[in-house]
C-alpha cells in the first residue's frame, strides 16, 4: 500500500459540492432536457498525493477532469487548485497543470519532437528551451534518437501515451490530471505507462489526479481512491480502507458493494 508523508497536509486540490448539468434540446424545437453529470462532488487531494477516481462510463469522471482542466464551467460548488480558484484564475492555473486525455490525442502526421515542441511553445517556453526539454523527455522515455522525427502515427499506442504524459510534463507542472491514461492499451504498454508514472512521482513528487476503470491500476498507483457513480462520490479512502468498509477481499468487490454497480469495461490486468 502506498503511504503519503503524514507531514504533508497542504492541499493541491479542493473540490466542494461540485455540480455540472448538460442541457440538450429534444428535437429542433423541443424542450431542453437536463442531465446532471455531477451532483455535488466533494473531495481533496494533498500535495504529492496520487488520487484515483474509479467509476464506470457515464459516472462523471471525464466531466470532473474537464472542469478541473478549465475546459468546462461548473454549475455549482467550488474548486480550488494550488491556491487558485476556478473559473476566476483559470489563466494562471493552466500554466501550473498538465493534462493527459484518454486517447493520447496527437497530431499524428507530426513527429514526437514536433508535437512536444508545439505544446512547449504554447505553454510559453522559448524555442531553444522547448527543444532542449523535449529532447530530454524523449530520451527519458527511452525513445531512440533516430525515431524523434518519425511521425507519431508510426509509433505504438503505448509509446504514444507515454509521449502524451511527457507532453503534460514539459512545463514541470506541480499538478497532473490523467483521464484514463491506460485505457485501450495492451497489457505491456499499460505496465510501461504505469511504471513511468511511478517513476515520475518518485522523482518529482508531482500531485496526480487519475481517473481509471482499472482496479489494479488504482491500487498500484494511488494513495487514495474515490468511487464515483451517477455523478456522486460514493466512498473514498485507501484501497485497504475501502475493502475493509465493504468487507471484501478485493477492490472490485468493494466497488460493487459500495456503489451497487459494476465497472463495465476496460478493467485490464496490471
Amino acid at each position, binding site marked *: 500500500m502506498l503511504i503519503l508523508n503524514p507531514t504533508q497536509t497542504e492541499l493541491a486540490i479542493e473540490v466542494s459540492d461540485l455540480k455540472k448539468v*448538460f*442541457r*440538450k434540446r429534444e428535437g429542433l424545437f423541443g424542450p431542453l432536457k437536463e442531465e446532471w453529470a455531477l451532483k455535488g462532488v466533494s473531495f481533496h487531494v494533498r500535495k504529492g498525493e496520487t488520487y484515483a477516481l474509479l467509476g464506470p462510463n457515464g459516472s462523471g469522471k471525464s466531466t470532473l477532469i*474537464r472542469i478541473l*482542466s*478549465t*475546459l*468546462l*464551467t461548473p454549475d455549482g460548488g467550488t474548486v480550488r487548485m494550488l491556491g487558485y480558484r476556478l473559473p476566476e484564475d483559470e*489563466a494562471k492555473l*493552466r*500554466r501550473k497543470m498538465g*493534462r493527459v*486525455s*484518454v*486517447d493520447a*490525442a*496527437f*497530431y*499524428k*502526421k*507530426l513527429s514526437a519532437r*514536433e508535437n512536444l515542441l*508545439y*505544446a512547449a*511553445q*504554447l*505553454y*510559453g517556453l522559448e524555442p531553444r528551451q522547448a527543444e532542449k526539454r523535449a529532447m530530454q523527455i524523449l530520451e527519458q522515455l527511452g525513445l531512440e534518437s533516430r525515431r524523434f522525427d518519425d*511521425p507519431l502515427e508510426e509509433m505504438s499506442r503505448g509509446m504514444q501515451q507515454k509521449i502524451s504524459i511527457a*507532453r503534460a510534463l514539459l512545463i514541470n507542472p506541480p499538478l497532473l490530471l490523467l483521464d484514463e491514461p491506460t485505457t485501450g492499451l495492451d497489457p505491456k504498454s499499460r505496465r510501461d505507462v504505469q511504471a513511468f508514472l511511478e517513476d515520475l512521482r518518485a522523482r518529482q513528487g508531482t500531485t496526480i489526479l487519475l481517473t481509471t476503470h482499472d482496479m489494479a491500476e488504482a491500487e498500484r498507483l494511488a494513495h487514495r481512491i474515490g468511487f464515483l457513480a451517477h455523478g456522486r462520490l460514493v466512498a473514498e479512502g485507501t484501497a485497504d480502507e475501502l475493502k475493509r468498509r465493504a468487507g471484501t477481499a478485493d477492490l472490485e468487490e468493494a466497488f460493487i458493494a459500495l456503489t451497487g454497480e459494476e465497472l463495465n469495461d476496460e478493467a485490464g490486468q496490471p
Partner: protein
Amino acid sequence: MNEILIIARKELLSVVRERRVLFTTLVLPIFVMPLLMFGPILLFGNVAQKTQESVQRVGVVGVPVEVLEALKRAKVEPVPVANPQEAVQNREVQAALIYENGRYTLYGRLSGGATQSALVVEKVQGALRAYKDQVVAERLRARGIGTELLEPFRLEIEDASREQERAAGLFAFLIPYFLVLFIQTGGMPVAVDATAGEKEKGTLEALLAAPVPLMQILLGKGLAVFVMSLLSTLAAMTGLLLGGGMLRSAFSAQLQALQREENAPQLGGALALDPLGYLSILVTAVLFALLVIALMISLGLYARSYKEAQSYMSPLMLVMLVPILFLQFSDFLKLQDWFFVLPFVNVVLAIDSIVKGMVTVPQLGITWASTLVFAGLALYLAYHSFRREDVVFRN
C-alpha cells in the same frame, strides 16, 4: 502574436505532411487552369477548322443539280436520303437539305451546345447564301441592273468597350469564379483539419487547456487557412497566366485563326489593369477570403467530424457561386450602389467592374467596408462558437 504564429505554423505543417492535400490545392491548379481556360477553345477551334477543311456527308431531297454543285464546291458530299430528319437524328449525315415548292429546309442537330452538325449547317448555309447571291447577281445582270442595287449602304459594327473590358474577355467573368473556387477549396482542408479534425482527433481539448487566449487560437487557425487559400489562388492564377501564355504562343496560329472567325467563342483574354486595379482586386480578394475563412471556421467548429464539416462547407460554395451565375446578366441590370452591400454579390460585382475598368470609388468603398463588417461578424460567430461548451464538446 507569437502564439498565433505558433498555431498557424503547426496547422500548415500538418497540411504540408499531407501530400495529397498539397497536390490538389497547390500543384493541380497550376496545370488544370490553362487547360480549363484554353483547352475547350483550342479543341473547338481545331474541330471547326477541320470541319471547314474536310468533306462531310449531307442528306439531300429534291435539291437541284446547280445547288448540288455549289455544295460540292463548299466541300460537302450530297447523299440522297429517304427521311432527312431521321437521317440526321441517326447521325447517318451531319445535316440534310430538302427543296420543295421553292423553299429549302435545312436539318441539323442544333441543341446541346457546340455540335459538329451545327458547323456543317453553317457550311451549307454559307454555300446556299453564296449560290443565292450568284443567282440574284446573274438575274440582275440579265436585266441590265448592277448588283450595287442590293447594297444601298454598308453597315460596320465596332466594339466600343473600354480597353480593359475588351482585353479582359472571359476574364471578367472567370476571375470572380476562380477566386471563389480557390479561396474555398484551397483553405477548406486546413479549415476542416484545424476545427472538426482537432475535435475528431481529440487534440482540441489539449489546445483549449493550454494558456492561450481563445481569440489567439482562432486567429492562428484563421491565418493558416488564409495562407493556404492565398497560395491555392496564386497557384491557379499563375497557371492561368503562365500556362495560358505558353499555350497561346504554342498555338498562336490556331488562336489567330479563331479570332478571325465571326462566331468563334470569346478567347481567354488578358488583364489590362494599372497597378491600382491590381491592388483593388487584391484587397477585395483578401477581404473576401477573410469572410469565407471565418465562415468555414465557424462551420468546422460546429461539426463533429471531418465528414460533417465537409458536408457543411460544400453548400457554402454553392451559395457563393449563385451571384456569379447572375453576373452573366449584370449588363441588363442597372447597378445600384446598394448591390455592393450584399455579401458575396458585392465582391463578384466589384471584381467584374474592376476588370472592366468601370468601378467607382463609392462602389469599391461600400464593397470593402461591408465585406469587412461581414468578416468581423463571421469571426465573432466563430469566437462565440469556440466559447460554447455545447459546440466544442458536441461530439
